[in-house]
Each structure stands twice: as C-alpha cells, then as structure tokens.
C-alpha cells in the first residue's frame, strides 16, 4: 500500500479557479477598507450585538472546522488506530489553515488589534496581570499556542521536501530540524490534543457569561461539553469532506472505507451530543421552551433535525461505503455544527428588543474572502509539499 505522502507537483495557479482567486482578492481589499472606515461603518455590529458573523463563523465555527487535526490525532495517537495515518497530514493542514485564518479574523474583528501582543504578556508595561477567570483569555492563549503547535505538527512535510533541496544550508537545517521534531513529537502531539480540548470547550463556557440574556434552550452549564463533543464530530466530517474533494479534484486515493469508519464515529458523537442535550433540557425542566412559537424554538428544531439527519445517514453501514453519500452526510453534519454555534452566539443571545443585527455585504465578503484564501493556501501547499497520500496503485483505485 503506497500511503506515503507525495506533493501534487505542477503549477499552483492552474489548480485554483479564477472565482476563488477573485473572492480572495475582494476579501483582502475589504479587510483593508474595514481599517480605513472603522467597525461601525463596515459591519452590522452594534452595542447590542457586539459579536457578529466574524466571531460566530470565522472564529467559533472556523476553529471547530479546524478540528480535523485534533479529531484525527485522537483517533490515531490516542485510540491507536494507526491505519488512519494517511488521513492525518491533510487534516493537520486543514486545521493549521483554519486556525490561522481564525486568528486573522480575530485581528480584523477586535477594535485595536495592534495591541493584541499585550494579551500573551498579560498587559504592557504592567505585565503578567492575567485574568484567569476569563474564558476568553484561556481561548486566546490556547489558540495562539495551538496555531504554533499545528504548524510544528505539519513541519515534517516541509522538511521532507527541503531535505533534498539543492541548497545545502536548507537541506542540512531540514535534516536537523526533522530529527528534533521527531524526538519531541510525542509531546507535541499530546499538546495538539490538550489545547483544543481546553479551548474548544471554553468556546462554550464563554457564552455562560451572557447567561441571563441567553435563551434557555442553549444556556446550560454543559455548554463546554457540548461544544467539545460537537467540534470533534465536525472535525471528522471535515476530514471526510476534504478527502472526498481531494480525491475528486486531485485524483488522490479516497480511502473510502476509512472515511466510512470515521463517519460512523462522528455519528456516535452526534448521538451522544443529542442525548446529553435533551436529557439536560428535561432535567432542568426546559422542554416547554421547544414548543413556544418564536424564532429560537424554530431554530432549535431546525438545528436538531440537521444533526439527526447526518447521524442517521452515517449509521447505515452499506450506504456509507459510497463516497458521494458520505460527502453529503458530512456536509450536513458540518452545517449542523455551524448552526449550533450561530444559534448559541447570535440567535440565543437576546440583548433586548431595541437591538438587531444582520451582517452587512462587506462583512459577508470578508468571511467569504477568508475562506477563499484558505482554499488557495491549501491547494498551494499540497501542490508543493508532500501532504496528501500518494497516487493509488491501480488495484486500490475506487
């Protein structure tokens, strides 16, 4: 079985559609514009809804979609399913890009990003004054650290390429660095599991501080657990989607039986998520909130249906051996997890009737642009570096 990672080779630009390129450029221009006119004019944000699309999607959902690396590390290194190894490197790449782009989105969203460096220092010049009560501080520090961890986890792909470089210096450095990383790998991998466990659950605890203004169907002390479980399921779904797409566009092996198996794991996670959620609602006597006639109850039902459908689909052992079927189920799961995060951060958040929020068109195009940039970087990196598993031998082509 040739499962060694290989670069795609060839020119990068020919592999990216013009549309994606343009969307990326539009996004980049709008980001510059946002700093020229301020947040008030460029976004739909206001004092009632200080967090909008950029936080709910780019940061909170974006990092959950970047949990493929975390989810695969759990499977391969913690639950010791070594055979899934070929899926790890592309998953780490998606995660590294997802988290880096989430970092970019934070820098665009906060009012004074030029002082972000004061957060890891705990203030400046009055340093070291961290507020350990703040779930957001924990998220910020963990995400910053995790971005670094992800790129280190991915770095063997770069060193493998560079160690054969004709430039002697780069080749020597790569060989040396490769050796060091290999020695430290255990602790880096462990960090790559610990950090997302911490901050993905904290992304749930964050909203507990909005408690009195958070709708009862979402406001639960189990928010951290629910965010953690759903982000792992989303991570697996993203791995399925990404593998399906790269086999479709780059002719790489689809590993369909492996994808079916991790799809199944995702289904179990979703069932767990749903059971915990519903049991908790029953125990707190909040079931009645589901049957009220309002936007929140409606969104709750849509969300639950969006979770149940892929969970049911992925339980079907026969059908999930089909790549298209798996892909559809994965997309729905990702949508459900996205909806859960939008609902928790925006729909369930009720600052008062006199406030409303809807993202502006530029706000949406910044988000779209960031996704486009992410796709371009993905294509560029898998073209140049050995990340995707090698071309299939004829025998295993599906």
């Amino acid at each position, binding site marked *: 079985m040739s499962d060694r990672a290989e670069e795609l080779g060839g020119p990068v630009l020919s592999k990216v559609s013009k549309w994606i390129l343009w969307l990326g450029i539009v996004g980049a221009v709008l980001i510059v514009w946002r700093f020229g006119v301020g947040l008030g004019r460029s976004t739909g944000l206001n004092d009632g809804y200080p967090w909008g699309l950029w936080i709910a999607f780019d940061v909170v959902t974006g990092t959950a979609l970047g949990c493929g690396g975390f989810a695969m590390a759990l499977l391969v290194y*913690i639950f010791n399913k070594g055979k899934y190894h070929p899926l790890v490197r592309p998953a780490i790449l998606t995660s590294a890009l997802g988290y880096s782009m989430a970092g970019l989105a934070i820098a665009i969203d906060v009012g004074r990003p030029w002082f972000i460096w004061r957060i890891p220092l705990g203030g400046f010049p009055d340093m070291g004054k961290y507020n350990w009560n703040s779930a957001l501080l924990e998220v910020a520090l963990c995400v910053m650290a995790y971005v670094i961890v992800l790129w280190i986890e991915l770095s063997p792909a770069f060193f493998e390429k560079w160690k054969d470089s004709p430039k002697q210096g780069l080749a020597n450095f790569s060989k040396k660095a490769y050796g060091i990383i290999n020695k430290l790998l255990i602790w880096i991998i462990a960090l790559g599991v610990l950090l997302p466990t911490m901050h993905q659950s904290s992304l749930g605890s964050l909203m507990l501080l909005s408690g009195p203004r958070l709708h009862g169907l979402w406001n639960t002390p189990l928010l951290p657990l629910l965010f953690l479980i759903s982000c792992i399921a989303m991570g697996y779904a993203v791995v399925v989607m990404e593998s399906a797409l790269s086999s479709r566009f780059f002719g790489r092996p689809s590993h369909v039986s492996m994808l079916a198996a991790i799809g199944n794991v995702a289904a179990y996670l979703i069932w767990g998520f749903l059971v915990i959620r519903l049991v908790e609602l029953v125990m707190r006597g909040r079931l009645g909130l589901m049957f009220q006639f309002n936007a929140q109850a409606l969104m709750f039902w849509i969300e639950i249906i969006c979770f149940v459908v892929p969970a049911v689909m992925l339980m079907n052992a026969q059908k999930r051996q089909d790549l298209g079927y798996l892909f559809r189920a994965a997309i729905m799961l990702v949508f459900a997890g996205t909806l859960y995060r939008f609902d928790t951060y925006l729909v369930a*958040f009720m600052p008062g009737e006199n406030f409303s929020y809807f993202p502006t068109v530029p706000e949406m195009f910044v988000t779209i642009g960031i996704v486009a940039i992410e796709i371009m970087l993905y294509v560029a990196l898998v073209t140049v570096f050995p990340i995707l598993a090698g071309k299939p031998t004829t025998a295993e082509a599906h």
Partner: protein
Amino acid sequence: MAFDRRSLLKGMATASAAAVASASPVKAARERKVVPEDARGMLYDTTLCIGCKACVRACKEANDLPADTRTPGMENYDAPTDLNEYTKNIIKLYKEGDRRSYVKRQCMQCVDPACVGACMIGAFRKEKYGVITWDKERCIGCRYCQMACPFNVPKFEWSSLNPYIVKCEYCRQRAGDKQWEPACCEVCPREAVIAGTYEELLAEAKRRLAEYPDRYEPKIYGEKDLGGTQVLYLSHVPFEKLGFKFDSEEPVPEMQQTIQHGVYQGFIAPAALYAMLGVVVWRNRRKDGAEETEGEA
C-alpha cells in the same frame, strides 16, 4: 472494513466520564462576593425624577463627552436615545397608558461584575470603593464585556478608528474630592439620584420604603439582584417595565467561573491530562514501531 468499535466507545465513555466528573464536584465552590466595606453607590428614586436631564448634561461635561446629534430629526440637539459611545448616563421614559416613569441608566457597579470576569487582562477592575473602572492601556477592543454585562452598559466607539470602551466610572476623576459625588448626583435638582456610601443609601432606601409603602413597588432593585449592585433603585412601576428584566439573585459570573475554576483549579487537571496523553501517545507509538519492524504493516 471492520471497525473496532468497542475500544473506541470505551475510550469515549472514559473521556466523557472524566469530563463530567471534573465538572460536577465543584458546584457552589465559588463563594458569593459581598459588598466591599468602603463601597459607594447611588440611589435613584423614580417618584422624584422629573426627567429634566440635567444629569445627562452634567455627565457629558464632567466626562468630556461629545454631543450626540445623530438622532433623526434632532440634529440640532444633544439627543442620545440610549447609552452609547457619547453617553455614559441617560434618562429614559417608560409610558404605558397613563402610567409613566422616568428611569436613569448608567453603570450599576455590580458587586460581582460580569465585565470584570470577562476582561482578558483586566482592563475592567473593581477598584477602591467598589467602583468599576476601565483602563484603555489594557483593552484591545474585543467587546467581551459587552457580551457579558447583563445591563448593556459598556459601549464601544463604533465610529472611531482607534475605538475605546465608554462606560460610567462613577466620575472617578473626582475620587480625591472631599465630598466625592458623581456629576449626575451633584446636579440633580430634586435629589432623585443621590450619592453616598452603600450602607447609607441602602438604609435610606429602606426608610423610604417603610415610610411610604403604597408609593413604591415593594423592592429595592439592586439589593440582591444578580448578586447585588451598588446602584440602588426605588420605583413606583414594576421594575421589568423599566428594563430590569432579571430577578435572579445569582451573580452572572457564578456559573461560568464555577466551571472554569473546577476544571482549571491550580492547572492540575490540564497538567495531568497532558501527562496522560503523552504517556498514551508514547506507548502507542512504541507498539506501532515494534509492529512495523516485525511485519512492515
């Protein structure tokens, strides 16, 4: 392909059991905060307020805030419609049939403030006299304070390219004065809002409530609500009509901090988890290595 479901489920069960176990024994581990001994506050009485807005004007002057001329049709006036980036104190009108009341809004100076709990590196702090202050040097404009404050008090300078948070700080620039009074309390012609120590004000509120029981709603808002606030309210209309919608006595940060502290107490749980993960990865890799040399998997 057969999938070894059992070991996976077992692992998942252990993990979730650990998560639940680490979260459950800490319930109510967090102590309720009490009003600081030197606490200062305000007492606002709807029956005395005539809606003259002298306090709004005085606040702008004392805090050097620009006029808000953005209200449609009111471009020639400083006419903010709510607390906002130009306005730290406002008088609002509640009207329903022939029942009406004014209500003054500004920072409530919570006993257990959500903004202070939210702020990453402590731009918000509960300082001397229990006054909640904001430090621009420690703020990056993340707006988590706005997400957290149950009274919608902190405001963001949306129209600025270098935006700060705007919020009543009890005129802390006057803290050195012998008779430290926020500008709003100083100018009020009817003493509808008065400043003083928390103890004095609470006693005064109780006195009024006892003396004129049929004039007021039988409650001092802020005495216990959301863990208590140093700004107290007396009203002749139900408090939820004035926008005070929450009657819970649980401080806003209690739930989140109980969980946060439970999981991260002394950083023991994360450190233990890290060590455990490291050992598991090490063991698994060693086994894999052994297998590979045996049979080139």
